[in-house]
């Protein structure tokens, strides 16, 4: 068992190293930006993976918390002249607090009702982002947001951002993987599988959901705050229902209950339109058809395919082992 874990760890390590070494050398200014954006989306989608994958709660709200984190950090660093590293942390905190308060109210609802109420939240928030100028600059958005300065490391270009975002994404992924193993994660999965059974076993369903929602909000806030400082310009157009649908597709295409799957889902959903760009006006049609085909042939997402291939290989190995042991062959 331990050996297996070590192999898994080594595989991931090699993969990450390869990513760090290969990606900057094969990408140019524009394509590295796409990779950066994919990584940012991955961080926000991780929060969704906690709610939807572990907890089974369909939520569209991530994009609102992303907006709250982004606007908070942008405002604080631009107008209050707070150091960017601190303003990002404050952005995360405000987003998490906001998610906590919203969660206290909305999580009293269940299943599709909760999903619908989060759709309403996204609509309200994008409306406020668009119209409340003192906070968000209205339709013009906020321009010339200060560059990120972490003291020891301040990314000057998009390649610098790539290294930073890879590190942040790995840390967030590890946190989510850790959550999966803890009491909170197990309680959440039990809520997903059977809420009444979970309750009878002493799980505080409401509290568990609120904590998960807050974690999701914090991750989305982090993603939003980083986005604000990376592109130095934010406006309401990013934080709409459509972006929310994109997150959901990332999580579902990648594999709803898998961190690594979510990573590949985020890459796929962000890259696919770029790869298909030569097709120009047929882009979204092919994108849509592609998604339908993915759902037909791999309904559990990329992670599901990987898992089924792995189990097939293992079964074959076991069969071979058994055949050898019995001295029996066809």
């Amino acid at each position, binding site marked *: 068992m331990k050996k297996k874990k070590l192999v898994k760890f080594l595989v991931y390590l090699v993969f990450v190293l390869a990513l760090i070494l290969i990606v900057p050398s094969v990408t140019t200014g524009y394509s590295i930006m796409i990779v950066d954006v994919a990584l940012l989306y991955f961080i926000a989608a991780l929060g969704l993976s906690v709610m939807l994958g572990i907890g089974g709660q369909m939520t569209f709200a991530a994009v609102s918390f992303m907006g709250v984190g982004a606007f908070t950090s942008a405002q604080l660093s631009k107008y209050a002249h707070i150091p960017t590293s601190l303003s990002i942390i404050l952005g995360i905190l405000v987003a998490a607090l906001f998610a906590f308060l919203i969660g206290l109210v909305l999580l009293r*609802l269940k299943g599709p009702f909760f999903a619908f109420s989060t759709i309403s939240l996204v*609509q309200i928030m994008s409306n406020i982002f668009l119209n409340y100028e003192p906070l968000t600059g209205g339709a013009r958005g906020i321009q010339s947001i200060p560059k990120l300065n972490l003291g020891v490391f301040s990314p000057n270009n998009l390649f610098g951002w790539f290294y930073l975002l890879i590190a942040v994404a790995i840390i967030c992924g590890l946190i989510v993987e850790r959550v999966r193993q803890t009491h909170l994660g197990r309680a959440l999965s039990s809520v997903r599988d059977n809420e009444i059974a979970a309750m009878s076993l002493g799980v505080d369903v409401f509290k568990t959901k609120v904590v998960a929602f807050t974690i999701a909000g914090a991750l989305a806030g982090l993603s939003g705050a980083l986005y604000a400082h990376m592109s130095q310009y934010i406006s309401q157009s990013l934080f709409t229902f459509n972006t929310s649908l994109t997150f959901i597709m990332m999580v579902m295409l990648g594999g709803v209950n898998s961190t690594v799957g979510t990573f590949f889902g985020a890459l796929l959903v962000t890259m696919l339109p770029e790869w298909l760009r030569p097709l120009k006006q047929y882009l979204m*049609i092919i994108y849509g058809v592609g998604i339908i085909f993915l759902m037909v042939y791999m309904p559990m997402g990329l992670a599901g395919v990987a898992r089924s291939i792995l189990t097939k290989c293992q079964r074959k190995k076991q069969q071979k082992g058994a055949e050898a042991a019995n001295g029996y062959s066809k």
Partner: protein
Amino acid sequence: MNFLINLFIPLTISGLAMGVIYALMAMGLMLLIRAIGVLNFAQGDLLMFGAYLTYCLKDQLKLPLLIMWISAFLLFAVFGAIFMFSVYYPMRDTTWRQTFTITTIAASFILKDSVQLIWGTNPISVKPLIAGSVKIFGTKIAIQYLLIIGIAAVIIWAVFVIFEKLYAGRMMQAATQDKYAAEIIGIPTMITTLITYMIVVVIAGTAGYMVAPIFFVNPTLGTLQLSAFAGVILGGFGNLKGAVVGSIIIGLIQSYSTLITTTYKDTIVFLVIILVLIFRPQGIFLGSKISDKA
């Protein structure tokens, strides 16, 4: 007094007209939720598609009105079948219901872009069926609004008759309530699902035909579906009558809220939805089981 009437009657009529459009969409949503348990994110795009298709038949091909209606009806039904065979049929055996949600999102992308490819992105203006306006209590009301209310009322009534009174509708209801048991007693559930899809597209397409003269025909018509979602919640999930009344209330709220604010119109609507969800999660109507929903 006169002032109030002048203010409220147009708002009420336009709110009611938008309300019944939302109601048509909400009915389609509800039928699909009941039939296969999927939230159709392409509902608004089906409406948009209906608007474009009827524009094409009427203004581009210049068909006579009656023939245009019949051909539009048939085309919607055929499109419903295509829709079902592309976003439902291939994944029908999946154990994971969210798959259908994803495929409807994908279908929404495809519809939006195909429409832009065929007809371009510029908004197209369409003449109303009967131009002009009538005077009610001294205020001018466009006839198109009244027409929308009338036609939509007929369609809503027809759907109720199909689903509650006719034998075929009972079969469909049985198939949605318990698929397995329905199959045992010989109900072809695949065909009932197919017919449900056809009805949904016909309703949504007709709604698109009716709103086309009010809004321009353009790819953003799909966003109307969010108000239909709101109507579904307000009426209580899984309740066809509730969805209709809820949608009409949403239309009226939207219309009246323009008295107070225009920029935060949507905020008010969705705030109402959240409040309803919190204080009356079973919807505004009694009679549905609370335990099913919240």
